[in-house]
């Protein structure tokens, strides 16, 4: 190859790099590792019970849930759809709704929609070195968007400021290699109902708190030590989720409810599949065991050049 061709601006590699750089500039910045839960080496999967600490372009379609039997003996089956969409790389919104089939002993089966819920989210920060991230949000559950009388959907709107965080333990010393795949995500939020009561019952303000404790086999295999895990086991993330809600006023402050949900998530390149058992924390939260399964799609990976991008980068 001649000296001229070595410096030729239309040399194959240089030309390709130029074309790619141009495409990247035209399309906006590359989809940096903030998409669907990356913080440095750490990949946070989309948890099922608790909110995620990151904005994303994702869709849960569907989530099938069989909750524990209610205190009055009611059996329920839920089908939910949730969508998360970025507006900018750091600002996003969520929207979701469910369909419920409910059977109370001695009564006919009732079906219908549960309430519509939406959220606006802002990514406060992502720290790749410390595998940390945090998000602030404002969730709204909308009145009269489900079957109020038959299924108990809300006849009032609830506004809920939220704070979500995530932390991976990959920065632990090398002397603790098998602890480094651990990670935790958590939520704190507070409900502000727009009506003090409905149908003769109080609507209290609630303090909501929850966390997900995860052990990422993906992190172990690809960032800590090759322990010969092969697909699909090298993309499994066992976890346990806990979510609790405590009313703080209107005479209900001892009525904490919630569930503990051990399970497992398999996270692939385009979607993840999760399954969890549902264990009520007390009699108020139900009795017996429930369970759920979810298919969760990564829109940014499936449609990287269209609806998977932030709206303002289309």
């Amino acid at each position, binding site marked *: 190859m001649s000296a001229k061709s070595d410096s030729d601006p239309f040399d194959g*590699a240089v030309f*390709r*790099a130029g074309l*790619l*750089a141009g*495409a*990247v500039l035209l*399309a906006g910045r*590359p*989809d*940096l*590792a903030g*998409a669907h839960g*990356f913080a*440095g*080496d750490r990949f946070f999967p989309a948890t099922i019970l608790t909110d995620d600490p990151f904005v994303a372009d994702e*869709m849960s*379609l*569907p989530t099938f849930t069989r909750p524990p039997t209610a205190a009055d003996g009611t059996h329920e089956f839920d089908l939910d*759809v949730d969508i998360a969409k970025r507006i900018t790389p750091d600002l996003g919104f969520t929207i979701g*709704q469910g*369909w419920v089939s409910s059977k109370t002993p001695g009564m006919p089966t009732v079906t*219908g*929609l549960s309430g*519509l819920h939406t959220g606006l989210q802002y990514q406060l920060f992502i720290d*790749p070195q410390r595998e940390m991230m945090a998000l602030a949000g404002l969730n709204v559950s909308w009145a009269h*968007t*489900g*079957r109020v009388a038959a299924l108990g959907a809300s006849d009032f709107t609830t506004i809920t400021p939220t704070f979500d965080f995530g932390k991976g333990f990959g920065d632990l010393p*090398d002397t603790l*290699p098998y602890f480094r795949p651990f990670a935790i995500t958590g939520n704190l939020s507070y409900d502000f109902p727009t009506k003090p009561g409905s149908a003769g019952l109080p609507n209290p303000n609630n303090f909501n708190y929850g966390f997900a404790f995860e052990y990422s086999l*993906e992190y172990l*295999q*690809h*960032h*800590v*030590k*090759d322990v010969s895990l092969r697909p699909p086991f090298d993309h499994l993330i066992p976890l346990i989720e806990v979510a609790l809600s405590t009313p703080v006023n209107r005479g209900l402050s001892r009525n904490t409810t919630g569930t503990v949900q051990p399970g497992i998530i398999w996270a692939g*390149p*385009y979607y993840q599949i999760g399954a969890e058992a549902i264990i009520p924390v007390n009699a108020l939260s139900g009795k017996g065991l429930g369970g759920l399964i979810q298919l969760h*799609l*990564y829109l*940014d*990976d*499936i*449609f*990287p*050049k269209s609806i998977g991008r932030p709206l303002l980068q289309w």
Partner: protein
Amino acid sequence: MAVAKPTIVLGAWLALAFLASVVLGSAGAFAHAFLDHAVPLVGSTVHGSPGEVKVWFTQELEPAFSSLRVVDQNGAQVDRQNNAIDPGDRAVMKVSLPSLPPGKYKVFWHVLSVDTHTTEGTFSFEVVP
């Protein structure tokens, strides 16, 4: 009327689900590039200096925006700074190493997959006599 409203909303969700399934069926094969495996193995101890570090990814890479480097315990880069994508398999990246003294080394990878998704990561290996 009381039944029509939830039916319409449920219908809208089902239509969205149908649309998503149709579009998904025609979606291209793109995704973030994850590390699949590496030589030396992630977190391994090797006897004698390896001649190179080679990393297999789950997606094909863009060479102009992908890099692989190796540093020692002091953070000094020790590879020959000739990282390249394997022309026979664009999902593989490698970099040559000089003769390394015993010690711990860290590999940093930063790659751009062919659909412009960027990912990065690290892993370590140790050289013993």
